[in-house]
């Protein structure tokens, strides 16, 4: 399966004008297949600019993006080709729904790839089932459904392309807790059943801590931390200093430490915190 690599990636908006702004600078990293990656960072830290490079939506000012070793911006054909492999779900994707029926909206991508009717139907059905869209909704207008349902239809439209790499920019923004849980469950399900690589941008540290195997932290256009949740959240002070939240459980563990109860292992999920306190009671340090 595919590997995507960024090499010295730099992007400057409005270059040569008074509004010139370098959004990301000299980013090099590699994303092996099958990882679940969380990208965190303050608004304006460059994370959205970075992911838009991964399917050639914007071109680097300098540096390269490689997909299985070849430059995705080499020519028009490769730019088009990359979008079959890398699916990108924007922020508030429900604003992009436009078709008359839910079915037609989900089918839009596969249709443009000139698949047969049967193939399209199979992909739409599969994508709808991944995102929990009931068959009876298929002929309804997407515009009359709830916010959470619309969001899932928009995600289904990308999943119908069967991307090997699925990237989502704040997929739970603006949803209520139940809506968030459903969407994240859908995404995990897709990853589990297809083995796809998943990259999510999120402001919710608790979600990232719980789901991601690897966390990449952006600040001021650069990657400042990159590692497992253990490694990243053990740097809680650093995260706070760049204006990021830390998981509530990590904050509580820090407060306990301040009061003299040193739990002795990095805590970043609720379950981890409960276990660490119980272990402390038994005199163990995990």
């Amino acid at each position, binding site marked *: 399966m595919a590997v995507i690599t960024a090499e010295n990636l730099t992007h400057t908006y409005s270059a040569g004008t008074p509004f010139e702004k370098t959004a990301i600078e000299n980013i090099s990293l590699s994303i092996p297949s099958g990882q679940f990656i969380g990208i965190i960072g303050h608004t304006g830290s460059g994370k959205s600019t970075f992911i838009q490079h991964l399917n050639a939506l914007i071109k680097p000012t300098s540096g390269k993006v490689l997909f299985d070793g070849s430059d995705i911006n080499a020519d028009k054909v490769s730019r088009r080709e990359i979008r079959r492999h890398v699916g990108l779900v924007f922020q508030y994707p429900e604003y992009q729904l436009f078709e008359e029926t839910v079915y037609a909206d989900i089918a839009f991508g596969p249709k443009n790839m000139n698949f047969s009717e049967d193939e399209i139907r199979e992909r739409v059905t599969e994508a709808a089932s991944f995102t929990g869209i009931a068959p009876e909704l298929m002929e309804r207008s997407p515009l009359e459904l*709830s916010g959470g349902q619309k969001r899932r239809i928009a995600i289904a439209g990308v999943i119908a392309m069967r991307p090997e790499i699925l990237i989502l920019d704040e997929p739970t*923004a603006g949803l209520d807790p139940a809506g968030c849980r459903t969407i994240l469950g859908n995404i995990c399900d897709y990853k589990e059943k297809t083995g796809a690589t998943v990259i999510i941008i999120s402001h919710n540290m608790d979600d990232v801590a719980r789901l991601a195997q690897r966390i990449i932290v952006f600040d001021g256009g650069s990657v400042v931390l990159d590692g497992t949740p253990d490694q990243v959240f053990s740097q809680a002070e650093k995260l706070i200093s760049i204006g990021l*939240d830390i998981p509530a*459980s990590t904050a*509580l563990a820090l*407060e*306990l430490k301040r*009061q003299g*109860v040193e739990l002795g292992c990095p805590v970043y999920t609720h379950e981890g915190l409960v276990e660490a*306190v119980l272990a402390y009671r038994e005199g163990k340090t995990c």
Partner: protein
Amino acid sequence: MSIICFNEVHFTYPGSETETLKGINLNIEEGSFVAVLGHNGSGKSTLAKHMNSILVPDSGTVTVAGIDTADENRILDVRSTVGMVFQNPDNQIVANVVEEDVAFAPENLGIPSEEIRTRVDDALARVGMTEFARHAPHLLSGGQKQRVAIAGVIAMRPRIIVLDEPTAMLDPQGRREVVSTVEHLCRDTGITAVLITHHMDECVNADRLIVMSAGQIIADGKPSEVFSQVELMDKEGLTVPETVRLMYDLNSRGFSLPLGVTGMKDCAQFVKTALMN
């Protein structure tokens, strides 16, 4: 004294088969900071829209500062008593300069221009946006835009401000800015604040927390009292603060900690004491 009173309020949207508000009785004290928590579809936004006559009850009554919101002759009085802030910051800003946007409502109220100047300066200071007075609103962050929207409302000097999910589209920093602005407004100026949200962490410092589900109020009390009802909150699919959740789970493993603790320091103190014994 109660400034907002709901008396047996029922409401059904036209064409809908189910009632969105199923007999709401609610009194809100003047000067208090009240948070309303609930899922999408729980009726919390419908409740908010009844507070300034955007919607009026099918049966029952809503009064604000003693005015019946269903009285068509008093609608302007209702609207100048209750200011609303909505979810999407981009939909609420009308002018090209921050201070002009804040001046929009007082201008429409026919207030003399020197008085408008005072009100605009005061409103921008209250939300911490004075230095942006002459900036273009579209270049501000989401949190800053919402604070401008709040300034626009308080420049009308309403007695009540109702915020309908003002933080849903903001990042964590923007959310903190908006919630702390609302809290300070309420504490410093005595304005009554009603904050509709689905983020439980925004409710922790409120005087009172109301939880809605399926058109009814299912919990009402101090945030610490409401959050300590962990089973109820779980059943509703709502989250409780990590402090409460930790104590709840530790209790099921042999600890006996109080549940109504929402402060990190206090929570850590209790856990520490329990561990030392």
